[in-house]
């Protein structure tokens, strides 16, 4: 099995008629993802990539039976696109757009509160279940079907870790880029919960970095439930350049939680196996899964 997506996932693309929407939709169709239509306001009734285009998400859902949407709408309108999909009751929304204004994301999060939609991103590279479904902008080639779940705040590091896991002779059940922005949808904690409920995922890699406190929330969750499968953690940014600060409010809001060392010790205390270096993640999960078997 996989998480979030499977062979029955029917995807529409919001912003399909734009450059990015066209390019990546075509790449995903080639990979085997079932893309069933697109949404671009004002272009309803036309066809693009041989697929029907609709003015609105609700109409596209009704006509195509889509159960997932991916967003390639530019930053100016990305939040409005996310909110439209949430209000239409789309079960899964994957937002690939980068550089969405943070105050716009406050409104998206408020819309999510009253809905059952799962939002992944924005600033996410997407979701990849090898051989089953790809909703995203990641390059493919080094992934392999398997039993390791990967959740990550960083796109480039996910590609690296996927390659390491495959090189270690393992494969991936699903890889999820939860997005690199401070305010986004699906959290590390909630993504972990999905992996732990999936029978086919026998080990999980969580990739975190400095900033925010999601790793601590993940650690708290894991400490409480004691997962039956190995969890490997990597937190980068211990030696990040220090930026000039301005004012005190940042210090009040961030606290010590944003520090890499703090995150690593929280995860370690929760039983997570910390990879000793970014180049050793593949080996670390291989050893942990061999020991658990």
């Amino acid at each position, binding site marked *: 099995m996989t998480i979030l997506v499977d062979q029955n996932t029917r995807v529409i693309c919001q912003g399909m008629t734009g450059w990015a929407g066209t390019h990546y939709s075509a790449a995903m169709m080639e990979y085997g993802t079932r893309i069933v239509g697109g949404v671009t306001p004002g272009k309803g009734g036309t066809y693009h990539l041989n697929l029907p285009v609709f003015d609105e998400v609700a109409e596209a859902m009704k006509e195509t039976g889509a159960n997932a949407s991916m967003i390639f709408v530019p930053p*100016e309108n990305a939040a409005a696109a996310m909110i439209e999909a949430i209000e239409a009751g789309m079960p899964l929304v994957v937002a690939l757009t980068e550089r969405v204004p943070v105050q716009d994301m406050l409104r998206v999060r408020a819309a999510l509160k009253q809905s059952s939609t799962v939002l992944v991103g924005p600033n996410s590279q997407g979701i990849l279940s090898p051989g089953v479904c790809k909703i995203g902008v990641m390059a493919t080639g080094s992934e392999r079907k398997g039993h390791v779940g990967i959740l990550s705040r960083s796109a480039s590091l996910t590609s690296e870790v996927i390659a390491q896991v495959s090189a270690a002779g393992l494969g991936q059940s699903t890889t999820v880029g939860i997005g690199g922005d401070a305010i986004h949808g699906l959290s590390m904690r909630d993504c972990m919960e999905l992996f732990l409920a999936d029978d086919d995922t026998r080990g999980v890699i969580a990739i975190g970095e400095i900033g925010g406190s999601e790793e601590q929330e993940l650690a708290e969750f894991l400490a409480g439930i004691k997962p039956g499968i190995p969890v490997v953690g990597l937190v980068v940014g211990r030696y990040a350049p220090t930026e000039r600060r301005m004012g005190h409010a940042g210090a009040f809001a961030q606290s010590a939680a944003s520090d890499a060392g703090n995150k690593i010790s929280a995860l370690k205390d929760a039983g997570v196996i910390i990879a000793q270096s970014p180049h050793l993640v593949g080996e670390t999960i291989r050893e942990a899964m061999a020991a658990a078997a």
Partner: protein
Amino acid sequence: MKLHEFQSKALLSARGVNVPEGRVALTPGEAREAAEALGVDRIAVKSQVLAGGRGLAGGVRLVSSAGDVEAAAASMLGRTLITEQTGPAGCRVNRVLIETAVRPVRSLYLSLLVDAARAEIAILAGAEGSEDIEQRLQSGETRLERLSLGTGDAPEKAAVTGLAQRLGLGSGLHSAFASLVDQLRLAFVELDATLIELNPLVVTEEGKFVAVDVKMIIDDNALFRHPELVALREEHDGDETELVAQNRRLNYLRMDGNIGLAVNGAGLGLATLDMVRAANGSAANFMDIRTTATSLDVAHGFTLLLNNPAVRSILVNVHGGGMQPCDTIADGLGIAMRRTGRTCPVVVRLAGNNAEYARFRFANFGCKVIDCPDMWTAVNRAVSAAHGERS
């Protein structure tokens, strides 16, 4: 984007917030004229840098005559100010703000910020404003009151009154406080701010609130909605190199080591810095090539690295993704190496999308690079090359 104090005050003043009367000066002579125009005998001379902690570092002076203003400005302008928030490199002072010094009856702390953990805008306020507020909070001498503003909606009147009471403001001040909160809330939303901090916010004898110091940060991702704010950047005294990088879709930060570092993706970049340190090396910079950068953008980035005399070796760690294939970065590096003609060991680790093709590109450019199969090997080669060891 961080704004200068004088820029922030102008933006807030236009939205009804009281700020001290004042003017910016670029020379001691202009400072003197500004002081004479104010015609008061208590004048603040304030260095304009994009960091806090100025008062404790001598970047703010209170004087009583136009002559003293001129002397104070002369001692600040053109100097580098180092505060606990600037880091050891400090910030060069190119402007001073000459202001009427306000006599406070009370000083408060008030800020609006985006609280990422709760995904909302929040007000944090303290009954005593001062530059050492962080220390006094830690020691328990003072505390912060919080008021949620959600997505920026007007809070209930009772909630604002409650905040005023918790700050110990008398009922005579409640209505002025409510107006101030509203003006700040609207400014925060309208300007796409991520921070507005008034410290101190003072209450005068006449019962007016005056923002004596203001710090403001605007969301870079929202600048497309604010061309008028982008224009303010011209008054910034940023690092020339960082400015070039910004215009070339590169995230660039100066560091103090000797390895010029280029990566694609912030996470991979942070991972590489951690590995460089583990291998006993130190980076001269952090350069993250954004997914939208073209090979020409990348070439400008590598030129910055090659022209930095502190750089002894260059480390390129790239995992080509669906948006940024390896060959774009190889082309950029090739162009920069041909253009600058500088010979310095260049260590590359290319993986993922179009890695093989990128190697052909290097060959076509006639560029000699040290091609490593994995990150750890590349990091170690770059570190030993920077130490002057033959590889």
